[in-house]
């Protein structure tokens, strides 16, 4: 799930991170459900993967390819759940820099995220934004 790391300074709007594939194995999903104390039967009986677990893995994939300076703060998150995914499915996460702007004393970085299943059907889309102190 690792990819080449890029430093924040080298990022430009439109930069596309290397797509990352991951399997939604049941061990990971069970660990996630325990961590967030989610006992909803829908995940155990229907084997649906919690979309926030998928989003977490997509974020981890992004983090593995991005070197943010110290002091970076995750300020906002948008997510849209387009289709459900099931445990043991293989998914691929895509990420792209949507905006890199200065706002007052901070830099702001917004990255679009898109997760597909093996049939190329979109599962989740979203955008994550960080503010960073000016160096």
């Amino acid at each position, binding site marked *: *799930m690792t990819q080449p790391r890029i430093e924040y300074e080298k990022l430009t709007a439109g930069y596309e991170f290397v797509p990352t594939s991951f399997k939604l194995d049941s061990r*990971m999903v069970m*660990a*996630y459900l*325990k*961590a*967030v*104390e*989610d006992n*909803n039967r*829908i995940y155990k009986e*229907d084997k*649906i993967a*919690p*979309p*926030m*677990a998928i*989003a*977490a*893995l997509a*974020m*981890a994939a992004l*983090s*593995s390819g991005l070197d943010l300076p110290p002091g970076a*703060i*995750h*300020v*906002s*998150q*948008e*997510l*849209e*759940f*387009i*289709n*459900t995914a099931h445990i043991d499915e293989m998914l691929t996460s895509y990420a792209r820099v949507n905006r890199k702007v200065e706002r007052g004393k901070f830099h702001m970085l917004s990255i679009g995220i898109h997760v597909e299943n093996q049939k190329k059907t979109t599962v989740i889309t979203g955008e994550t934004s960080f503010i960073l102190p000016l160096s």
Partner: protein
Amino acid sequence: MRLPELKRLVTQEHINLYAEASRDFNPIHIDAEFARQTPLGGTIAHGMLILSYISQLMTNSFGESWLGTGKLSARFKAPARPGDTITVSGKITKMQKDEGSISIYCDVACQNQRNEPVIIGETKVRVKA
């Protein structure tokens, strides 16, 4: 109309489990000694962990409709720390009938035990009419 509230006690054990599950091992979440030396003064929960509580709230109220049509827009206002009790609330603000479905819009929030906002946001879910 208000959605049934959730309450969650954030513990370091939950944060560590979340780090394992999400593969996010940033030391600010899991390394007490490292975190003590930062301006935050101690470990904090992953923002996505706390955000997942909002998704739980929505799943509890709207079931599979949320998992397949949900939309969430959230702002992180303050970190959640081990020992914090997070209250997760939601309120329906608008219902709009579309072709064969109803779109339900909600304001959602996570607050700590001091009533400080940790996350605020809006959701939308489509249910069958």
